[in-house]
């Protein structure tokens, strides 16, 4: 038999269904008996802002002269009821991330960076630290189901209050902080024993449903003498109704977090399979505001996978008043930086893929309570990096807005956008590029 008579061989073919990651996860589950917990947001590809494009000016629209003609970026949040609304110079804020999940240094750096640029930062599930209050010109204080570290003094020290109903990474889920990160200081703030696996509740202890929420908001307003804007944060799942109910309950601001949104520690199955992408959530939320006559009166902040001024511009064009960032802010501080590659390798991962934030061994010193690791992050330098990044986002957003002929980034509108895919066209309610087809228009 010679070579030429050999029948053609099949090549080894990997299954698309049982791909290597899926099989590795089955083996891991079989070996350990516990679901995978990790930090970060969804890792699979989802319809996102990348699937939208701006049209820019043309014969029928005039652009603004770059650098010369002004393009405003300021935003006021909390104009509905609060005696002291918040003024931000740029419509990108730092999302709530807990002290506990993050080191005190990282929280301080977030405050420094945000303050330099004239925007706000947010506490998280674990209370307010003096470091972040001290370094944050404008600080939003989260009111979470766990109520860790909640107290009336910090409530009054805050510039706004955010009632957290849910998070995009895990709508319907509570928090968790594993024992490794419950340091003495974290334990004390949360009033828990050190070293235990802390689970935080997914439902608020003293209210359920929109009617109770209305009364809860009234209480928070009474305690703070109606000064502070009150936000309500929801994970994107039923954005039309959640937005409408938050408005009915008396929110000044609705924060809508899509499924790409990061988390400090959640089951992978939750992160990847619950909730909807932010792209699909903005239009229904805006529609709810419009139907109630509240668009731009109750402000909408959106988050979940926002990385650049382009993402920001697209979110604003779809009707948001501002965006919030979590993961991107951590990357700006130094998270997943290749300079720590050798150490990521030791942890069995690589720069860019490190997501075991719950284990507290972050080489970059951000998602840790280990004093030696945390010391690696210089809050001043990291704060500067964050400020630079926020400035770039703002400039990018202005660049796009000017190209579309807008003298304020809030003047961006859906008509400035087209979609690259049918999915994105349907979700964002803008035409597929080159057509005038908006799939599913008329019934969200």
């Amino acid at each position, binding site marked *: 038999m010679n070579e030429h008579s050999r029948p053609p061989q099949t090549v080894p073919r990997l299954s698309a269904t049982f791909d290597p990651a899926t099989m590795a996860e089955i083996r891991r589950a079989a070996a350990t008996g516990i679901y995978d917990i990790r930090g970060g947001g969804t890792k699979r590809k989802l319809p996102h802002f990348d699937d939208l494009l701006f049209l820019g000016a043309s014969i029928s629209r005039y652009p603004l002269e770059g650098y010369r003609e002004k393009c405003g970026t300021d935003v006021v949040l909390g104009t509905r009821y609060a005696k002291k609304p918040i003024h931000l110079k740029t419509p990108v804020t730092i999302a709530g991330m807990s002290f506990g999940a993050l080191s005190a240094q990282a929280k301080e750096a977030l405050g420094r960076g945000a303050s330099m640029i004239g925007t706000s930062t947010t506490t998280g599930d674990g209370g307010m630290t003096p470091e972040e209050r001290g370094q944050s010109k404008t600080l939003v204080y989260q009111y979470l189901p766990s109520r860790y570290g909640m107290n009336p003094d910090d409530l009054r020290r805050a510039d706004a209050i955010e009632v957290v109903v849910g998070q995009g990474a895990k709508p319907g889920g509570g928090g968790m902080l594993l024992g490794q990160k419950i340091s003495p200081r974290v334990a004390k703030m949360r009033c828990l024993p050190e070293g235990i696996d802390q689970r935080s509740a997914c439902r608020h202890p003293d209210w359920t449903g929109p009617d109770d929420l209305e*009364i809860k908001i*009234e209480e928070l307003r009474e305690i703070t*003498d109606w000064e502070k804007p009150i936000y309500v944060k929801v994970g994107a799942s039923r954005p039309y109704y959640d937005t409408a109910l938050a408005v009915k309950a008396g929110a000044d601001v609705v924060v809508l977090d899509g499924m790409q949104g990061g988390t400090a520690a959640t089951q992978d199955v939750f992160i990847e399979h619950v909730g909807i992408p932010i792209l699909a959530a903005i239009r229904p939320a805006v529609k709810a505001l419009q139907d109630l006559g509240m668009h731009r009166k109750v402000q909408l902040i959106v988050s979940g996978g926002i990385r650049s001024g382009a993402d920001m511009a697209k979110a604003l064009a779809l009707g948001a008043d501002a965006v919030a960032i979590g993961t991107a802010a951590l990357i700006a501080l130094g998270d997943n930086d290749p300079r720590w590659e050798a150490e990521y390798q030791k942890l069995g991962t690589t720069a860019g893929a490190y997501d075991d934030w719950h284990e507290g061994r972050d080489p970059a010193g951000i998602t840790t309570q280990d004093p030696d690791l945390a010391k690696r992050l210089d809050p001043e330098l990291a704060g500067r990096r964050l400020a630079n990044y926020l400035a770039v986002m703002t400039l990018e957003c202005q660049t796009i807005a000017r190209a579309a002929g807008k003298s304020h980034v809030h003047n961006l509108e859906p008509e400035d956008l087209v979609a690259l895919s049918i999915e994105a066209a349907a979700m964002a309610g803008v035409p597929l590029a080159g057509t005038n087809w908006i799939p599913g228009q008329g019934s969200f």
Partner: protein
Amino acid sequence: MNTIPTSQTVDLATVSLRELNQSLHRLGDRTNLSHWRILNPRGAHALACGLDADVTVEVDGDAGYYCAGMNKRATVIVHGNVGIGVAENMMSGRVYVKGDASQAAGATGQGGLLVVDGNTSGRCGISMKGIDIVVKGSIGPMSAFMAQAGSLVVFGDAGDALGDSIYEARLFVRGTVKSLGADCIEKPMKDQHRAELYAKLKEAGVAGEVDVGEFKRYGSARTLYNFHVDNASAY
């Protein structure tokens, strides 16, 4: 002779809740108005919440949700019933309810004392973080859920799933407990615990009313403190 008034009566039929709470919040440390009486509360929500002064506020009638919420230092006495979340997240001070309380009484409270003469509905002491709660009647289901610290003393009975996922709070119940929640167990009531309970009752001004020997003690088995796959059915 001029005397400085030390008490003030506010009629909520004529004054708004906003004005009342605002006046209470403005009380400085050197206030002479150390006693307030509130008339016609008519179930108002958020009544006397966010106080931070050494004053006594007496409410003549029923209050709604979150009465005395986040209280610090003040003594609030309600001569009536209260709605959901009385004394929620209390930091210090005292809150007395002469009637019954709805759900989530003393929820997440970090300090101070809450005494309910009547019964409370479910979730009494949910996520409590250091508050002491004394209920002279009975409490509803899911009470002391995820209770972290502090004590809950019940003269009557407790509903289903008492102390589910409890951390370090201490529970004392004189009557029957319909069922215990995950990780909550009965613990031996030794002399030291009777002494501790007596001290709590004394603090609440009700020491003579019951025999501490009749109480059973409940707390955390601490088996859920660190995740273990063999406990998965308890989560």
